[in-house]
């Protein structure tokens, strides 16, 4: 069964991409304990670049669109409660994402000589907050939007979101 709405599919695609990155981050953490030696290697810098870019650009773009365009629809549909909860979670994730992006950029430039433990800790928190948040959006937000969006609104929203890329 394919999704009916372009907008929900685009949000879902963002989730899939984020989770792919989270899976990679989780693998890095599970192979390198916080108390052990910091990882190094040829692929690490590229991974840290992708991570920082996702945190600084994609997460912000995704959250801003949801808060600006999608959550008000939930309020109009009589379910502002879930929108408030998700907005609270966005605030928490943005906070960790900012610090994690800074740690990733610093490590990309200077290696993990100093900040491996902090990076590990921030990554763990970020993964948990993001997974829990995506869980709620996949199980609540997207099915609700499927019901709320008509074709015209869906076309307009998906176009607007595509233009933010």
């Amino acid at each position, binding site marked *: 069964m394919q*999704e009916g709405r372009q907008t929900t599919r685009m949000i879902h695609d963002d989730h899939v991409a984020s989770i792919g990155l989270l899976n990679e981050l989780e693998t890095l953490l599970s192979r390198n304990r916080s108390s052990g030696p910091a990882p190094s290697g040829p692929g690490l810098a590229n991974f840290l670049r992708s991570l920082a870019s996702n945190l600084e650009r994609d997460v912000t773009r995704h959250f801003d669109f949801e808060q600006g365009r999608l959550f008000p629809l939930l309020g109009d549909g009589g379910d502002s409660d*879930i929108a408030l909860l998700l907005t609270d979670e966005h605030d*928490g994730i943005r906070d960790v994402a900012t610090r994690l992006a800074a740690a990733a950029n610093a490590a990309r430039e200077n290696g993990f000589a100093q900040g491996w433990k902090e990076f590990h800790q921030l990554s763990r*928190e970020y993964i*948990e907050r993001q997974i829990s948040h*995506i869980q709620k959006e996949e*199980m*609540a937000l997207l099915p609700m939007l499927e019901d709320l969006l008509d074709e015209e609104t869906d076309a307009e929203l998906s176009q607007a979101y595509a233009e933010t890329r």
Partner: protein
Amino acid sequence: MTPTRPVLGGSFLGGAHGRLLPPTIPFRFFLAAALYHLAFWIALAVFAEDAIGFRGGPGPMLGVLHLLTLGVLALAAMGAGYQLLPVATAVPMRARWPMTLSSWLAIPGVAVLVAGMGLAHHETMAAGAILMVLGLGIYAVLLLDNLRRKSSLPAVQWHAIGAMAALLLVIGLGFALVADQHHAIFADHFTWAVAHFLIAAYGFMGLLVLGFSQVLIPMFTLSPMPPAGNATIGLGLAIAGLALAAYGLVGDQTRLVAAGALFGLAASLLHVQTLAASLRQRMRKALGDTFILVFIAWGFLPFSVLLGLGLALGHAVPPALFGWAVLLGWLATFLVAIFQRIVPFLASMHAGRGKRPPLVSTLTPERSRKLHLWCHLVAVAGTGAGLALEASSLVAVAAVIGAVGAAGLLAFTLDIVRRMREGAA
């Protein structure tokens, strides 16, 4: 048919925050279940000899059995049902006081009934049975009332309706079985007791497990929702199988019982295959060690039905081994897996009311959780081996390990309640 994301017929968590009950309602059931769980393993260790070759009838082992079925499984189902059903159906419960009342009846009711069974004291048993009939009866009526209204998740709704219908049958039969000990009602008490057991395990608890699995497993793993058609077919097969087996049992028609078991086997294989297919498409790769319990429980579901089929066909299957496979292998193992995930999750929702929700990991006491997980697995394996080999000492040792794990689960639950209160303060 490959869904691209966890597609629900409706929203499972939508409005969940607003439909949260006061934590005291679900958590009183969870705490009571954790306490009775500890009592169950201790009692099994003490009366391990009675477990070998147990075939029902008043005495310590009947009490031990009901510590597990009513004290652990039914009370946990009450707490989870009251909290999860309104979230799944998107319909709030009408009032809170009947839920509170049911807890005041059922939680002490288990202790009274079990004491009466253990001491073979009819009046105490009858008093406990009355408390349980009222407590579980209120629960069934409240859930059926909630289920009457249109649900956004029909797969969960129909399974829950089936489970509540089975529960009403179970409590009616259970009360009649207690009464039968002084006022001869049944020509063959044992046969009706087995029917009571089957409807309780596969009907009430089983259908709840099959139904809630349709949303809980995708939620925990970020998997697509299983196709609703499979759930509907599975429900039909399960109900048909249970009806045939129960009718065949009380009518002394072995072929019907065997046919019922085959229907049940088909339902259980379809359930496991459907959820496993959904899981293979999950976005979240790391499942966490609680899924060891889920996978083992999935294996035990068809295995228990096969043992039941063997019994029906007259093969040399120890009846206690069949009970072990259904109750400990499947239901208890699945329940504690979900318990380990859902209790911290609910606690985080409560602790975060009106502010940023705390991380689930900060509310989860890992040591006690892991202690319980591994002890549970060893205890289930050990009791099974003890029952199969008719070695009561092995059952006793395994039950002691189970009790250590159960103490871990109780500590886990108490710790979460403490952390939730601190987080909410």
